[in-house]
């Protein structure tokens, strides 16, 4: 009886609390909200300080996220969008749906960050992952000349796939088509998304797979498996910087600003490495988790400025299609 009363009291209290609690809706990509992603821990950490209800909503991957926002337009329920990357930020800013932020932080990014609209929360390098016992090539060019078999993702449907497209283009410019022609006989197949490609690699269908330099950290930390390594390439590695932005039309202006500021604090940043398997944008006071020191450190970080990304992307895609459709 007593417990029933307590229960009833809780319900009514919760109901009352719910009515007063402001709600912040954050659109993000699917793997962020999954139980194995940063979502649950981020939600808990933010709700401890904000006196609000943080609602994380998954909507496909980064590119689908932007498409979703464009579909909804001004009517969107999102207050914050988290999960775009620098390939998309220019197009996202162009929609006029985002407003500027007021966040300041000492970022630990390999490049300077001056975007007035978007706040970076993590970053990583694309890399080819292989079994540790493989004598890996040391450049894209060497890979193209080798007999090794690789699996990559389609740039039209996948973020890493697009990353490789930009990687080859920034490293080789006008020579990019020649590199792709050289890679053509190494490519076992092209997949729709990262999961398919990584699955194929684990099944032994290829010697290397396009992924991130941080992928071996997952195997090392979560599975205590040291059998995976990432190949370090002389041309440098293309980067992905993931960002969040405030929706201009939000009715939770203050809360949204608070969340963006929260993103660059230790509470958020310390969750990232072992849930999103990326580097935090601001290294937390405790440093990176054990195991991250074993990862390769590319000599050079490659990144196309956000404003030029779309033009380069379209030209590079045409080159890619014609080189691989022969």
């Amino acid at each position, binding site marked *: 009886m007593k417990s029933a009363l307590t229960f009833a009291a809780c319900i009514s209290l919760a109901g009352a609390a719910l009515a007063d609690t402001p709600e912040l809706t954050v659109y993000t990509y699917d793997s962020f909200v*999954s*139980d*194995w992603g940063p979502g649950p821990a981020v939600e808990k950490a933010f709700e401890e300080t904000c006196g609000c209800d943080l609602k994380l909503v998954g*909507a496909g991957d980064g590119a689908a996220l932007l498409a979703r926002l464009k579909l909804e337009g001004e*009517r969107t329920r999102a207050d914050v969008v988290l999960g775009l990357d620098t390939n998309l930020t220019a197009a996202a800013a162009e929609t006029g749906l985002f407003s500027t932020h007021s966040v300041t932080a000492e970022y630990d990014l390999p490049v300077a960050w001056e975007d007035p609209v978007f706040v970076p929360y993590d970053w990583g390098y694309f890399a080819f992952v292989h079994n540790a016992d493989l004598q890996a090539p040391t450049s894209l060019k060497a890979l193209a000349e080798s007999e090794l078999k690789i699996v990559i993702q389609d740039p039209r449907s996948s973020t890493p796939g697009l990353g490789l497209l930009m990687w080859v283009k920034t490293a080789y410019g006008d020579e990019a088509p020649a590199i792709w022609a050289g890679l053509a006989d190494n490519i076992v197949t092209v997949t729709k998304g990262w999961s*398919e490609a990584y*699955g194929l690699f684990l099944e032994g269908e290829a010697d290397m797979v396009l992924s991130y330099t941080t992928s071996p950290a997952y195997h090392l930390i979560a599975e205590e498996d040291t059998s995976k390594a990432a190949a370090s390439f002389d041309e440098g590695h293309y980067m992905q910087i993931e960002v969040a932005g405030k929706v201009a039309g939000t009715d939770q202006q203050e809360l949204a600003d608070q969340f963006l500021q929260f993103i660059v604090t230790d509470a958020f940043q310390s969750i990232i490495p072992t849930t999103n*398997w990326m580097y935090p944008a601001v290294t937390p006071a405790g440093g990176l988790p054990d195991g991250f020191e074993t990862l390769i450190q590319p000599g050079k970080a490659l990144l196309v400025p956000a404003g030029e990304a779309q033009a380069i992307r379209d030209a590079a895609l045409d080159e890619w299609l014609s080189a691989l459709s022969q």
Partner: protein
Amino acid sequence: MAERTQPIRALPGAIAAGFVLAVVLGAFAVVVSGADAERGLGPADLAALRFTLLQAALSAGLSVALAIPVARALSRRRFRGRTLLIAFLGAPFLLPVIVAILGMLAVFGRNGWISLVLVQLGLPPIQIYGLHGVVLAHVFFNLPLAVRLILQAWQAIPAERFRLAAQLGCGSRDIWFLLEWPALRRAIPGALAVVFAICLTSFAVALTLGGGPKATTLELAIYQAFRFDFDLGRAALLGCIQVGVAGLAGLVAMATLSDVGFGGGLDRSMDRWDGAGGLAKAGDALAVCLTVAFLFLPLVAIVLAGLPGLDTLPATVWRAAGVSLLVAFASTCILLALALPMAATIAGARRGWLETVGLMGLATSPLVIGTGLFLVINPVADPFLLALPVTAVVNAIMALPFALRIFVPAARDVLQVYGRLALSLELTGRTFWRVVLLRRLRPQIGFAAGLTAALSMGDLGVIAMFADPERATLPLQVYRLMGAYRMESAQAAALLLLMLAFGLFWLCDRGGRSGDSV
């Protein structure tokens, strides 16, 4: 001959078809109206169209051609495990694409079982990636379905006809021409059209096994238009082409469909006196054994990959399984409510044009229909709240063509055989449904319900557009696990999905056939 008088009315079926058409066309209309700039079709799109048509036609042709000897063997042989085998024929079809690809590659891949044996023998490994790989995978998915659809045509031949043929001294050849071929003519065009329509929307399978951007299908072009260029007009245009091609294929199929029936029988169990020769037996055995090997090895690979992680599945996977079961149940109910009246209306008409509507639903790009429904719902309600009902409706529409293919020939027979008797007894409308039609269609209802439930379990469909953490379905959870590097759990979740989907299928299918020897 004008429309015959029928004991049932055509209106409910027409309403159901109208509903399906409204959902499909409505989605397109909304997507098109949301588009600003429009870019026409480029050479790349035409190449995609060519490749899509080529692989779909090859896949459909090969699936159905291979299904004929298998269905024939299954229809005239009785052997231990036959019933189980027939039930299992649903399995490949129910798998989420990514799981099926991994299963296929475990057997046929560069590092697959067959390649390992070949390498042991000093031969080069199999080269699976290319057009042949795409077709092989599509045959893996669709051969079982084609077998079931064609087997059904055989089972529609009353046992008495075979008895009569045996008495008249007909051999295998005579029976083929007199009984089996006419029966097949009622099944083949429809089966071809259904498999063709399924393969039209292929994307991940075609790309992965096709070995690269040469294997770009229309669905990939739609995906690109939507998320790479955010060109809704182009996405809708490409989607319209898909639907148009499927509609055309449907019309051709319906035009070539024979509606010759075999009259009624006494529902005796079927005995066959032909095909007793050693060669015929060996041929049948070979057809069955090859099919079993081809379909089951990848399934074995999936089971083996999934077993280790099965006892440590996270709780969210079980919750997702519950959600999926719920969606599957709802889809099945919606499907029966749509398909049964439509099938009766089609069966009562001389030509089954209405069936084309079903095919169009099947060939609709999930991305276009998902976007369209999202745009319809978003202004009036929270799309996330409606995620599951929307998924259930879309899954039901996707399963509609299969259900129609299953129902229509049987319903046609019922109307031909019992229609006039029922009219003379004034057994019409609801009473006819209850007393005659539903009873006679029981095995078909079981099969179609099982197929829909299982399909709905395995389909990623539109849920990805609407999903939030609490409403993830099992296939979505499989993808999420893979996306989080948790390959072992993902494979275990895929095995759970396979077992649940198959369990549902088996329950419904058995339920429909209980007391029957099929």
